[in-house]
């Protein structure tokens, strides 16, 4: 049996990779994929804890997280399409009409 700490370590690593991706990558699609990675690391956490505690809450939470993540990505890609139509770029550095 794999100890729970391994799952937690895996999810921590995935979360860090995702966070680093959001902060360093310049392509909007890659940034969205990194966010997805972070959300999935959370799911691993929930499943591992749920298994460890023998409690269903974590699994239910995961189902909701996955659905919400899908909705979030749908909205994000919709906005991205509108943005590409008006801006012709996927690069976040070139999206600079607003200073800040």
């Amino acid at each position, binding site marked *: 049996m794999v100890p729970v700490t391994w799952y937690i370590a895996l999810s921590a690593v995935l979360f860090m990779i995702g966070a680093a991706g959001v902060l360093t990558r310049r392509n909007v699609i890659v940034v969205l994929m990194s966010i997805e990675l972070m959300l999935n690391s959370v799911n691993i956490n929930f499943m591992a804890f749920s298994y460890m505690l023998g409690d269903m809450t974590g699994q239910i939470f995961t189902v909701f997280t*996955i*659905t919400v993540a*899908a*909705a979030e990505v*749908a909205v994000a*890609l*919709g906005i991205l*399409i509108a943005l590409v139509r008006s801006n012709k770029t996927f690069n976040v550095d070139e999206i600079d009409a607003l200073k800040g």
Partner: protein
Amino acid sequence: MCLSAAAQYAPLWPLAVYFVAVVILVGAMLVLSHALGERRRGRLTSVPYESGVVGTGSARLHFDVKFYMVAMFFVIFDMEAVFVFAWAVSAREAGWAGYIEMFIFISILLAALFYLWRLGALEWGTSMKIRRKIEPL
């Protein structure tokens, strides 16, 4: 349980032999046919044989936004099925309250589907009416 490493993996040796044999055999086939085979460079050599489709252009082209719509609808409606499945396995235990909840849930999905349908988002081929014209005041 004090088997040495060698003894532990002993039953696996036929598999290892089989794996090596496969690699050698396939490698020999490829190399020999490449070395001995006859090659010809005609006008139609690289074209797919008879029933194949002839490729045109590069694969790096812009896809129509319609594909995005389809993908998005799939993701959204597909994910909602998660809840229906969860309800389906516990329908008896969840009782009427669960039934009502699922009814509400499905009605919301139906409302969304009807909205998309009337908006023309589900139509393929014809130009979509999504960007409805807005008349100024």
